């Protein structure tokens, strides 16, 4: 696929902003955990991004490929079904130019980095660092690249009408479903649930980190959505303003919806749920950022913000899934809604208005990615225990795995809080 010079330049600029999304997500995960695990959360983010990126370099890009490059296909029912790329490993012979292949390789690395951070929210405060690296490497080598090929590189999902410009499904639902598998395998944090199954509140240690992370993530999302629209939706450069407007609008309406809903239900707006709502809105608009009119983007975001609040409650209260960072609700649930919204509300000039395609994509995510993630991580758990022992959880992952806390200068003096 050939890009004009303007498209290449714009895509590159957008991709240079993209890593801010990963930085924001790392801050959000760190802030939503307790202070005894803060350094470990940040270290895990760095290691997950590195492991996933290196695995993508070794073999991931081979499987993802790019539109117009060599593929592996299966003949079924008289058709050739494009199921994987066949590019050289180690990014060999990657053109050192602003070519489409080089730009999709960069987009792939940034996307896999973001996807690898999502499961950390689900497994926070009890997931060992070595296991995080192994799981992230598998995500970067196999899970993400396969699905990305099916959706972004001309694979079979694209051929049934599935559309996902900015990665609602490819990045966020893949990451969110992996977070679900990890949360199931690890089990809840020590002390999270009473013997009767009542969840205890475990507030994060820094809502300021979380909210600042949201703003950073918003900036990064602008880059990723614009790059995705250019590279994978065939959007013309003049359409990028609409993509950016839709992205900000969806995040804003989602945050306001979450804040209003928590105010109505609990008497006060909840900051962490509002933060999750904001990210949920960004996730929901990623699929249809180039094809939704602004009003539809605002509606999609508002619905995502509402879904996040109810979903967090459902997962924690009814299903007893301990998800410290809200990854499953924010990324998997909002991502699925985003895919549906792109099919239901989209106005695509290329003619792709297929709810069927979006439903097949969602079915693929649950029917292929979930069993794969759960099975591989369960198998890895046999050889390398994923969960920290109770003593490690009690003293905090910082001291247990890293030997040093994140805030060694902070000493809590109880008499500082006495009224004078």
């Amino acid at each position: 696929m050939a890009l004009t010079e303007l498209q290449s330049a714009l895509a590159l600029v957008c991709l240079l902003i993209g890593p801010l999304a990963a930085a924001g997500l790392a801050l959000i995960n760190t802030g939503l955990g307790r202070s005894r695990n803060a350094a470990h959360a940040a270290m895990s983010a760095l290691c997950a991004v590195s492991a996933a990126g290196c695995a993508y370099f070794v073999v991931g890009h081979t499987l993802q490929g790019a539109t117009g490059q060599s593929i592996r296909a299966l003949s079924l029912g008289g058709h050739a079904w494009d199921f994987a790329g066949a590019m050289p490993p180690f990014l060999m012979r990657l053109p050192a130019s602003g070519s489409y292949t080089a730009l999709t390789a960069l987009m792939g690395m940034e996307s896999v980095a973001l996807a690898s951070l999502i499961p950390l929210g689900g497994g926070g405060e009890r997931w060992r660092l070595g296991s995080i690296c192994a799981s992230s490497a598998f995500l970067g080598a196999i899970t993400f690249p396969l699905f990305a090929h099916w959706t972004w590189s001309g694979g079979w999902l694209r051929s049934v009408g599935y559309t996902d410009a900015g990665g609602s499904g490819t990045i966020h639902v893949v990451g969110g479903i992996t977070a679900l598998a990890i949360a199931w395998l690890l089990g809840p944090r020590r002390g999270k649930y009473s013997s009767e199954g009542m969840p205890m509140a475990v507030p994060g240690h820094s809502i300021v980190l979380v909210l600042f992370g949201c703003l950073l993530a918003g900036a990064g999302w602008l880059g990723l959505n614009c790059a995705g629209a250019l590279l994978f939706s065939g959007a013309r450069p003049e359409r990028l303003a609409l993509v950016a407007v839709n992205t900000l609008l969806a995040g804003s309406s989602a945050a306001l919806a979450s804040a209003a809903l928590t105010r109505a239900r609990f008497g006060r707006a909840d900051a962490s749920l509002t933060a999750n709502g904001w990210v949920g809105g960004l996730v929901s608009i990623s699929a249809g950022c180039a094809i939704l009119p602004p009003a539809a983007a605002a509606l999609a975001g508002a619905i995502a913000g509402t879904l996040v609040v109810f979903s967090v409650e459902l997962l924690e209260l009814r299903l007893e899934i301990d998800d410290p960072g809200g990854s499953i609700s924010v990324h998997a649930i909002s991502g699925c809604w985003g895919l549906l919204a792109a099919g239901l509300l989209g106005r695509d000039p290329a003619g792709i208005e297929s709810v069927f395609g979006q439903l097949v994509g969602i079915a693929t995510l649950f029917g292929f990615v979930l069993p794969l993630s759960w099975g591989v991580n369960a198998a890895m758990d046999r050889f390398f225990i994923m969960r920290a022992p109770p003593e490690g959880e009690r003293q905090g992952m910082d001291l247990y795995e890293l030997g040093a806390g994140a805030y060694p200068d902070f000493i809590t003096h109880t008499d500082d809080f006495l009224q004078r």
Partner: protein
Amino acid sequence: MKIAGFLLLFSGWLLILAAIALLPAGMSRNIFALAGGSVEALGLILAVRSHLPVRSDRG
């Protein structure tokens, strides 16, 4: 029970793939795919229920 749930999830997805590969676009393909989706939904429900902790007050 967990394994059964995940196997049903995967089987339901394979049914949807079969519908897309073997049937032309139309009502029959959609119905076949819906059947596959129902098997997937069943598998997901089974997987979720199998991960719920056993509690004496749960039915």
